[in-house]
Every structure is written in structure tokens, then in C-alpha cells.
């Protein structure tokens, strides 16, 4: 029994140890998690700490350049841009998280069914998803919001719908390659029903690539929501939201008041960048093979 005695008897670490390990292993991941923590923090407690009320207008201090008093300057009706940018984080983040969660769930279910059972169900679902993807996605989202009405829920639904095909396809492929794997057949021999095999054995194995998709998608969903607001089909003024702020600020760039559009734009970029960086780290986190 020498094949066993030579092995070191290390025990598997806990989830928290694993997180620490992943962060230490990859400095980019660590940076991404710090940036992510900053965004989460500004979404949670930002509104309580900003120096000014984001909605309070004051004509006497309109269009002031960035200064120690107003870090990001003020806008045309004298609102503090810094306060507005920070307060907007919560709204933008909730829209993207809700939309991504919704498309993750719907896409996973559709993709799992198509990948596992195949046949006509697979063909029908695939053609349906092809149809969605054949539309210019942003135009589709515009159409949905325009048809359903200009509310935050509808922005979430629209963003979710245009994202579903990506998840469904990914899950379908991941499930499909594992459909006849040895461990799946073994799970059936252990008395698992098809549904249980799919949910407990196959689907979790699709999680690592899904996490990369989720993370990239979060950034993309923020851009999408901001884009909808930018063209006037989303959150309505005066609610602070990065897209509207950029749209409003764009009018003032020609006259030299650059800070109105640049700072919300920078924040938008920062958020998207964070989520793009986060993907690999999240994947490493849910992949047990990284736990050695």
C-alpha cells in the first residue's frame, strides 16, 4: 500500500483560507477585490457620508470647477457632483446585480435543460436564443423599456433579457460535455434521478466559467443601464445616476465645464474595470481544483 503511505496527510482548507490563498496568489485579484470592496462600501454607506444632499440645488454655486469644497465641482443647478456620483453607486450597482442575477437564473435553467436532454427541446431553445441575439441588443433593450415603461424594474428586466442567451449558451455547452461523464453515470447508479444529477452533480461543475461571465456581465450591465439613461430611457432626472449625469454633462463640455461629464464617466469606467478584473478571481474561488 505504498501508493498511500507516501502521500502527505494535509487536510483540505476551509472556505476562508481558500479566499486568502486566492488573494495572495494573484495580486491582480487582490487589487480587484479591494476595488470591489470600495464600490460595495460606497453603495452601502456612501449616501450617509457624502458632504452635500445630492438633490439640493443652489443657483449661487452653479458650474463651479473642482475645488477643496466641491471635489468634483458643481453642476448647472449647483448640485455637488461628488455627492451625486457616490450616491449613484447604489442605484447603478443594484440595477446591474439584479439584472445579472435574473439572467443567471433563467439562463442556467434554460441552458441546463437544453444541454442535458437535448433533442427537440434543445433545438427550439437554441433557435429562440438565436432570435434574441440576432437583434442589436441595445436596441432590443431600448424597445423593451420603451414598451413596458420608464421604470427601474423595466431596466432590470430589459438588461436581464438581453443577457439570458449568453448564460444559456455557456451552461448548455458545459452541461453537454459532462452529460455522459463517468461521474454522472456513477451518480445515476447511486440512485439519483435525472433532475438531481443535473442540479447536484453537473451544474456545479459549470460554475467556474459562469463566474467569469457573471463578473464581465456586471460591468456590462452597468454600462447598459447607464446607456439607457443616457438616451433618456431609464432612470429619470433628478435621480443621481451615472448615465444621466454623463448625458447632462455632455452639453457643457463645449463650454469648458468638463467635470460634469468626466467624473461620473470615470466612476462608470472604474466600476466596469473592477468587474472585468474580478472575473478570474471569482473563478478561482469556486474551483475546487485550486484548493491544493
Amino acid at each position: 500500500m505504498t501508493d498511500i503511505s507516501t502521500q502527505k496527510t494535509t487536510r483540505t482548507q476551509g472556505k476562508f483560507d481558500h479566499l486568502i490563498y486566492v488573494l495572495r496568489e494573484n495580486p491582480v485579484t487582490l487589487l480587484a477585490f479591494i476595488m470591489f470592496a470600495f464600490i460595495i462600501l460606497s453603495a452601502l454607506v456612501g449616501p450617509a457620508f457624502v458632504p452635500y444632499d445630492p438633490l439640493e440645488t443652489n443657483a449661487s454655486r452653479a458650474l463651479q470647477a473642482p475645488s477643496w469644497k466641491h471635489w468634483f465641482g458643481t453642476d448647472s443647478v449647483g448640485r455637488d457632483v461628488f455627492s451625486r456620483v457616490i450616491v449613484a453607486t447604489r442605484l447603478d450597482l443594484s440595477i446591474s446585480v439584479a439584472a445579472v442575477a435574473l439572467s443567471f437564473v433563467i439562463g442556467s435553467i434554460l441552458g441546463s435543460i437544453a444541454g442535458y436532454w437535448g433533442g427537440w427541446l434543445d433545438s427550439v431553445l437554441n433557435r429562440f436564443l438565436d432570435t434574441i441575439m440576432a437583434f442589436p441588443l441595445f436596441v432590443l433593450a431600448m424597445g423593451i423599456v420603451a414598451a413596458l415603461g420608464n421604470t427601474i424594474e423595466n431596466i432590470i428586466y430589459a438588461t436581464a433579457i438581453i443577457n439570458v442567451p449568453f448564460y444559456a449558451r455557456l451552461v448548455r455547452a458545459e452541461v453537454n460535455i459532462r452529460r455522459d461523464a463517468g461521474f454522472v453515470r456513477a451518480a445515476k447508479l447511486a440512485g439519483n434521478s435525472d433532475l438531481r444529477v443535473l442540479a447536484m452533480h453537473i451544474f456545479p461543475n459549470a460554475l467556474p466559467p459562469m463566474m467569469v461571465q457573471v463578473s464581465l456581465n456586471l460591468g456590462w450591465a452597468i454600462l447598459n443601464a447607464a446607456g439607457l439613461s443616457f438616451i433618456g430611457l431609464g432612470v429619470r432626472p433628478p435621480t443621481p445616476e451615472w448615465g444621466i449625469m454623463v448625458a447632462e454633462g455632455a452639453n457643457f463640455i463645449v463650454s469648458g465645464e468638463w467635470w460634469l461629464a468626466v467624473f461620473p464617466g470615470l466612476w462608470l469606467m472604474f466600476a466596469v474595470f473592477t468587474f472585468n478584473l474580478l472575473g478570474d478571481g471569482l473563478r478561482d474561488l469556486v474551483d475546487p481544483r485550486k484548493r491544493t
Partner: protein
Amino acid sequence: MLKVKDLAVSFKTRRGDVQAVRGISFALARGEILGVVGESGSGKSVTSYALMRILDAGGSIIAGDATYSGLDLRNATERDMRDIRGREISMIFQNPRAALNPIRKVGHQIEDVLRQHAQATKYNARTKAIEALKAVRINDAEARYEAYPFELSGGMCQRIVCAIALACNPRLLIADEPTTGLDITTQKAVMDLVRDLIRERKMSSILITHDLGLAAQYCDRIVVMKDGMIVEQGDPKRIFIEPQHSYTRKLVDATPRQGESIRSLLPVEDRIDIPNHVVYDAPLLEVRNLVKTYQGKSGPVHAVKDMSFKIKWGQSVGLVGESGCGKSTTSEILVRLMDATSGEVLFDGQDISAIAAKDFAKNPLRSDIQMVFQDATDSLNPRHTSRHTIAEPLRQLGKMRGAKLTARIEELATLVGLPSALLDRFPHQLSGGQKARVGIARAIALEPKFLILDEPTAALDVSIQAVVLNLLVDLRAKLGISYLLVSHDLHVVRLLCDHVIVMKDGQIVEQGPADIVMNTPKDDYTKTLLAAAPQPPARRQKAQIPGGNPC
């Protein structure tokens, strides 16, 4: 011709440098075939990559010399190496399908290497490529020139790889596990061809393999490697008859041979008596006129054509055949993962083929029929720990929970010889033998009456195969399970089984008691199979092995 002195290769990894090869020295004479034998991780492939200077990123030669006909291989420029590869030294890789570019015609791939080394011009490349194909005895070479790798069988692909390797008349051929994954008759054909070509062209060759029997049959000299070091080298016969090093002795012992008992695979000190298993004269499983037909693209494919056989209570039956003979389909049907087209499968008198495969998970008979899968790695969920994996059937079918479940898992781990510390590991943290044990523990968790073993040791090193086979013998005696061992390896079947069924093209060509079929085969196909298996030299007669013949 080739001289290697104190060669050491090291790889940079996350956990510091790992020495894969630690100072090996050997020489290869002109016209000699040298066998490099070792188990996985012994550094035998790395040695050959180092000689060709095609080590993976992070790997480098840190010490020693390698000279080929006076040329220093360690310090040669990349430009010189490119010239040498293919023209002076060429290589045959393990997986012929992976070694060929899937989207190019095989003829073009041969032309590539010819033109790379200026052995052919644009105008005569085609003729020369067809000549190369003819040299490896491919029938209808003109037509094969146009084929894509996916249109050819594994053996045919390996011939193409040989053709590419030999196209420029190299002086040295390195064959890295050239027949792993090929059927036993194909293995013989490919190896015979390679040997003949090497002799014909007066080339030298290094054959890297884990199969000591194969090396003994085809090599002039054998080098045995372990943990990056050469532990022994010498004449194959001498190594078999009088192994000097303890590791060589262990390898020689673990290589299955004719006329030896299963215990003799183990080191001498572990050879305890073979426990007897009782065979009752009542059928546990009866297969009647089993037929399975798939709907293929070009008409129906007859995977299983009218098979009938019986397995008695406690009996171990071997199902032997080459890939595509329908043995896997048969086992899938018996284990109720697949429905048969027609025919009956009576398990303890009950027709289980009448129950659809998808409903069988809820049938009370589910826990009586279990299976050990071919590839232990593939059969374990990468996200589940060993404990979770073994618990799965106990939870789902045995309805066990809590302390009772934990106790049973520990008991099973002890039974299959898996240290309980390994229970909380994920599959990727286990070795091949450990994964095989987890798979067996899961299969016997519910004490099935009938266990299908689908090539349970195909992916394992011989020394681990020896341990696993002996474990199976012990379990059979302890638990009274009937086995159906599906295998292409006749030696393994001979060791473990009471009864043998030989299959070809979906039909049984011969069946009977193991020693009768193995020693006095009647059917030509059985004879071919037996002749194709490598015949390692017999061991010097030693003291009688206790326990005698298990069959």
C-alpha cells in the same frame, strides 16, 4: 551514438523547483533498441523531451551532458535543433490523434516535414509522401494521402505518425508510449512494424513504456527509471530473471504473466493466502438474446448482436474483446444505464430489461447492481470530496444519515485500504490508485450482489494495478460479490476470473472456464488475442507460491 551523462532536468512550479530527472547516464549504440521503463512520474518522458529540447515552459536542463554523434544537444542553438529534429532524431508520441493536426490531410502533414528538411520539393513532395505511407505498410496509400485523421482508426493514425517520424530517414527514433490506448492486436502490429523498420534502416531507437513485458519483447537493453533516476539497466531477460534492484523486482513481479497466481503480483512479503470465494450453481444473472442497435448516420449500427450468457452467484466472469466489440454497450445495458433493443436480462429471476433505464434509479434492485468505471478520474465528481463521493449511494439508496453514515464511510475506507485522512480530499489531490479505491468503495458501499468492473486498472501503473486486483480478490471473498470484469487485457482476466467470454463484433465467439479458454483456445480470434499479448520471459522457478491457483 547517443551519450547521456548525469542529465538533470528541473521544472519551475508554484511550489519551487521540482527535479524531474536527477542525474541519469546511459549510452545508445548504433542499431540498438533501448527500452526506458518506469511508472508515471518517473521522468522517462521528460528525459526524451530534454534530448529533443522540447521541454515545457519552466523546464530546463540544469546539469549534465547529452551528445549525439559528437554534437552537444544541451548547448546546440535552436536553429541547429530544428535541423536535427525530424531529420536526425524523430519522435512518436503517445496519443497519435493528438499528434496529428485534425484539420489537415495526413498526406500534407507528411509533406510538411519533408519540405521542412529539404528532402522534397513542391513537385515531388506528393510522390515522396505516398512512398512514406507505403513504407509503413498502409494499403491504398494514394487514397489514404487524402484522408483526415478523424477518418482513420487509432492504429492507422499511429502508422501515419510513424510515417511522419521516419519520412526523413532519421538515425534515431524516440517512441514515447507508442501503443498506449491501442488494442492489443493493433499494438502488436504497430510494434512489429516499428521494429522491422528500425532493423531495415539500421536505425537506433529509444522505446519509452510503462509495460515491462512490451519492452522485454522488443528491446535489446532495458533501463529502469524511478523518481528521475536509473535504478537498473541491462539485458531484458536478465532483468526479468534476476532483477537486482528492489524496485525492478517489484515491477517484474507486478507484470502479469501466464501461469502465475494473482498474489505473485505483489512483493513477496505481501503474498498472503488467496481467500476462497464460493461459486453457487445457481444463475444470478441470465442474459438471453440481447440485441442493441443504434441508429447511425449511415444506417443502423449493430453494437450487440444476439448475446446469451449466465453468471452464477459468486462467480467472476471476464468479458474480453477489443474496442468496438460491444463489451461496453453490454455492460451499460446490464448495469441499467442503457436500454436494450431486444432480449432479456434476468437478475435473480426478475427481468430487469423490462424496467426502463431512466426509472431504474428508484428501483430497489439499484443497490444490488453497481459498477466500477474505467477511468477513475472521470468517474469522480471534481467538486466532491472522497467522503462525499462514497456517501452518495449511502444517502440516496441506503437512506443513511449522521453518525451511521460517517461510521459506514470509515468502514468502507478501511475495507478498500484508503487512509481516512484522504476522505476529505478532492479527486485532483489523490493519486490514480487512491482514486481507484474511492471508486471501488463507492461501488461496494451498498454491498451489491453483482458488480461490473469496466477496465478497472486500465489507467493505473502496474504496481498499483497489482494492489487493486488483489483488493478485488479479497473483497470478493469477504462480500460474496459476483464480478463481471470487462477488459482487453487477457492476463488480468486470467488472474481474476473463473469464466471467460470472448466477444467480437457484438457476438460471443467463445466462452468457457478461464483456464480452458486461456490455455486451449478453440476460436481463431481468441488465439490471435492470446498471441498478440506481450509474453514476458518466465521468472526463474521459485518456491511454491502459497494459495495456489485461484481459478
